[in-house]
């Protein structure tokens, strides 16, 4: 349950932050009148395209992949913290014996 919760919260948090960075980059490029294409391998993170007077901004599946990676990292960190807490809690028991 704890791992699932950490995975979900980490995914949401990193997803929002990744979207924020991508959106900030996109809006700056939009205002500057340029184009943008950021991708990791085949996965597009954010793209700003122009055709004539029309500007289109696309947030790609790369953001979902980044969010999922963030969720996994958060779940791993939560597991590590839980293991350290358990180890710390075990020490007094050993002393009592």
């Amino acid at each position, binding site marked *: 349950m*704890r791992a699932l*919760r*950490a995975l979900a*919260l*980490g995914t*949401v*948090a*990193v997803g*929002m*932050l990744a*979207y*924020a960075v991508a*959106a*900030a980059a*996109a*809006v*700056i490029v*939009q*205002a500057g009148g340029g184009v943008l294409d950021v991708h990791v391998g085949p996965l597009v993170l954010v793209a700003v395209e122009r055709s004539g007077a029309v*500007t289109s*901004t696309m947030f790609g599946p790369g953001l979902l992949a980044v969010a999922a990676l*963030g969720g996994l990292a*958060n779940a791993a*960190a*939560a597991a590590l*913290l*839980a293991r350290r*807490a358990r180890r710390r809690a075990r020490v007094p028991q050993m002393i009592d014996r």
Partner: protein
Amino acid sequence: MLDAGDRLVLADGVVFCNGTLVDAVARASWPVNATGALVLARSGCALGDVADDVAATFVVSVERARTDVLSFAWELNRLALANVDRRAGRVRHAVAWLRLAVRLAPAGTLPAITVRRLRLDTRTIPRAIAGVGRAGAGRGAGIAVAVAVLVAHIGLLAGRPSLLLPVAVGLASGGGLIVHEAAHAAALRGIPSALVFRGRRVSVLHAPAGPGRRALVAAAGPGVTAIIGTGLLAVSVSYSTPALALVAGPAVVHALALTVLASDGRTACEL
């Protein structure tokens, strides 16, 4: 940092009865010895006068009594059971704190800061939100001014002076703190709670709740603030307004508090 002229006042929700200090919010109690009982009975008096009373009652030196009384008062304040009333002079205390900070600077440490606990009415969501707004307004305004000055300075260095943008970013940063704590308080509806200011950290102290509710309360603060920020960012992308993206930035950063890097995230994950 406590002074002999400071007064100790039990926080809202904390009572002393039958030799026991009871925290109705945290649902915890502490037995208090005779000296502690005398100090608590003189609650509201200057700590120096209380120390004189302790010295006279228990026949100990004034220095020893003063050390004991200040240590006890410090411990109560650290546990957010009592507030320190500085009606003797906040400016004088601030100057004394700064002087001590300068003396301690070579050791790389700062003098301790007192804790302030305020009542939080969580009977209804509007009351909880209004309570946080009132209690956190000063802190929020301070953050807003500091961020506005910083952003204005960066704008000047970048050769793009502006007044509106620094003010908007400052208000978003200060408002973000209030929204964060207000969301915690709203999620605590019906649970006795208090707002605790510990230096630059603000936290909500509340009565024990189930694991699910605890996780909801912890995630609500950063979650709601980050969702508002993300919404503003979406609007800024739709209308190509970089200024709105800058305003949304401080709110989105609250999303970091959903991870185990922050205490809210760790609480939500029961760590």
